[in-house]
């Protein structure tokens, strides 16, 4: 995908209305249920997750070869056909879903793990800390994203670092995550900047509540909506980008299947054995489309203006 991640701030005003979370949540759920795309997306997504979770129930092994049965067209025995080593493609596709989704979740975790603390510190404390953090964010955003990811992927996969060594999922998640956190950091910072000056926060400070308490109990919950939406969309981007990097030869190491490397391996056989490319392609397609619909639904559902309109304020 050539589109890069766009910030949530640009598309919707950050809420500055405080509501007890219970009411918000139940109302949001009501709204979410009424979004047809989001509901369908959620159902498809649940189905995808189920295929990944129950992949081990398959009678076939995702890695073990069966060389006499290579490149079998789809049949009752092998509904998705088999690949170049005779492995059942359906099994591999479902296992690939595990890997791709795990990578996606890891990327989101890295994004949030860096983005939230940085955004919090910048937004809550402001001043020179904010200034420095914002310059770091600017510098990170100044890197040409795909080019930088290619460089990083090339470095990390040979680097002898304790965490990434022999863990290609972690490697690829780092590559994808290292440039995506500024979006979340900016989001959190924006929420905090608006809320920081609110009376009740000032009151809490005056009452001697610790910074940590204010941040965790009063401020963070208010950034919850946009962060959730951003994370959902981030999951989709991560899965898409993993497949893109795989196409360039920097993805998950075989024999572990991922949708990206399956699609990449299918490429040489596109003319003769098209099913190799079709099934992982469809899985990526369905996952991203449902993730995006869910994100859309969540955006609507968690939009404070609409929620407020609903309850008539």
């Amino acid at each position: 995908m050539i589109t890069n991640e766009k910030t949530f701030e640009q598309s919707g005003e950050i809420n500055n209305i405080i509501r007890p979370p219970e009411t918000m949540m139940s109302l949001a759920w009501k709204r979410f249920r009424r979004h047809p795309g989001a509901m369908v997306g959620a159902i498809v997504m649940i189905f995808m997750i189920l295929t990944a979770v129950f992949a081990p129930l398959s009678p076939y092994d995702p890695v073990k070869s069966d060389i006499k049965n290579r490149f079998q067209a789809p049949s009752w025995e092998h509904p998705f056909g088999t690949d170049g080593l005779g492995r059942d493609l359906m099994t591999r596709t479902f296992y690939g879903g595990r890997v791709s989704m795990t990578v996606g979740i890891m990327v989101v975790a890295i994004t949030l793990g860096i983005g939230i603390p940085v955004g919090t510190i910048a937004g809550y404390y402001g001043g020179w800390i904010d200034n420095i953090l914002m310059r770091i964010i600017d510098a990170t955003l100044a890197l040409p994203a795909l080019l930088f990811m290619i460089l990083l992927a090339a470095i990390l996969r040979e680097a002898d670092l304790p965490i990434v060594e022999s863990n290609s999922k972690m490697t690829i998640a780092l590559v994808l995550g290292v440039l995506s956190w500024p979006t979340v950091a900016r989001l959190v910072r924006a929420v905090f900047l608006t809320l920081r000056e609110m009376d009740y926060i000032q009151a809490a400070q005056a009452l001697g509540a610790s910074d940590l308490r204010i941040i965790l109990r009063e401020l963070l919950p208010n950034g919850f909506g946009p962060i959730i939406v951003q994370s959902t969309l981030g999951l989709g981007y991560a899965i898409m980008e993993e497949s893109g990097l795989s196409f360039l030869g920097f993805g998950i190491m075989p024999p572990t299947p991922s949708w990206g490397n399956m699609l990449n391996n299918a490429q040489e056989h596109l003319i003769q054995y098209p099913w190799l490319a079709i099934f992982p392609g469809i899985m990526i397609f369905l996952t991203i489309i449902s993730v995006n619909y869910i994100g859309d639904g969540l955006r609507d559902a968690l939009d404070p203006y609409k929620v407020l309109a609903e309850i008539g304020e």
Partner: protein
Amino acid sequence: MNYSNKWLKGLVFGLITLMLIISVVSCAPKPAAEEPAAEEPAAEEPMAEKTSVTILIPDNPAEFHGYGAGTGFEEVISELVMLSVAEVDDQGNYFPELATEIPTVENGGVVMDEETWEVTVTWNLRQDIYWEDGEQVTADDVIFTWDAVQAAEIWSSSGDATESVVKIDDFTFQVNYYYPNPEYIIHFGGEDFPIFAEHYCDADQGYYEWNCTREPLSSGPYTLAEWVTDDHLTFVRNPNYYDAPKPYIDEIILRIVPDESVKRAIMDEGDADVHYWPAENNALVYQEEGNGTKWAVSPTERWIMKIFPNTKARGDTPGEETIPHPILADKSVRHALRMAIDVDTIINDIFLGFGEPVWSEFFRPPFEDSCGIPRPEYDPEGAAALLKEAGWEDTDGDGVNECHGCLNAEEGDLMTMEFMIYAEYGETLELAHQFIAEAWANIGVQTELSIVEGAVLWAQVEDGGIELAGNFDINMWDNGYAGVDPTAYLWDYYYYASDSEWNLANWTGEEAEAVAALVDELYTVDEEYRMEVFCDIALILEEELPAIELFSTLEMFGLSDRIQGVRPTAFDILTWNVADWTVEE
């Protein structure tokens, strides 16, 4: 708010103008690197349809000689425009190109001093060959090119043997060797020694900066008409080519297409005539009748897929006093690893039959019958038994062997290693990689697979080069020697004290020293004795397995049905006889 309306109009207008300018600029015909000669032969001959052949290659060549960057296509284009002194044909026979004949002892061209073993070779050049600008090709050009290569510190075994290269007259030069040089015939030719024009190249720039290596003066059948980087190179007839009416084809186009399946589609559509190095599954299609395609394959199996086991602990560079590899230093383990690999299945099912089993460096002529070494059996049970004997057994049932009285590892250590290949070969090698790993897993050898770029695998130590730094357990890639004489190759890859650092297995010890001593014996002219020595080496290598040969991978070319006369050589340079190619509609 009116200003923003104008602003927008301006923006749209500006964008469209920008587009137009760009498209006009990039559409404008690119200036040709060299103007095609004005006096086209078509002027005299009856007007015929212009014949054109398109060759698909994946990568932009760097320049017109192969000493710098190695995309593999530098030699392909240099063969189109430049001649060498002598070359090898597809049958492995030497033939003169710029020379009038190959100097031999019989015709007096080669003289050896029986006392000092010094050898003198005299070459006579043809006097009817001209550069495209009309200047004659002379001995000065040969010596100029040789000096430039020497100044650039490019190593060759011929270079080591050479005392001097002396001009006798314009068309005669003499080479003085300290000792017999087995490669004397292709000293100024063969794989990558095109002769450059002295009067055209600026010697002061140094070999690597020569502009003439990007826009060379032609002495060969074609001349470069256009080179659009990363897109295509167009070659047209050299009107001054000495061997008229050759070349038969008017125009040769090298189109650079990175994606393999796209290349296949182009061949299927009949829009190209040569698919350089197709993947095995595509080669299979080209081979079939009725697809409008055929294929060609290099006559000698030069590229051998090999497994390089590191016999020293990871990170120990060659030549240093070192710790043995906990698993691979034991030669029984290396033998067991080989026994567990089902080479036939890999060749037939994964490489689609494109390959022959190989188990010795000396498997092809002039060697007979792999020096009598029998083909190793595929025997997974035997491999497991051998491992057990060597002290590797899985007693806790986790599927991975542990050391129980093995040679070099601690008691209870797991038999787990890294197994690496390079990325550029493509999916076929990746499948073989996974297949072998699985076979090893079945006998309790656990491997973690990795794929890296060639640029990393073969880099210098300082740059984190994995192999030269000894930072690997087991690697698999294809190499081998061109031609008929493996001397230099043996010296590079098996000579334990060699400073070429390519003794990848880090192989040392008595047997390695014995092989080194034998390699030293090879520098003689007594062919019979050399054959004996080669086979002695073969026996030691078979016993020790510093490298595990698996099978030959074929050098293939997909061809269109209409192209005729394409005969790949052992050097993989398809274009060596491009002047003889024809097109039959």
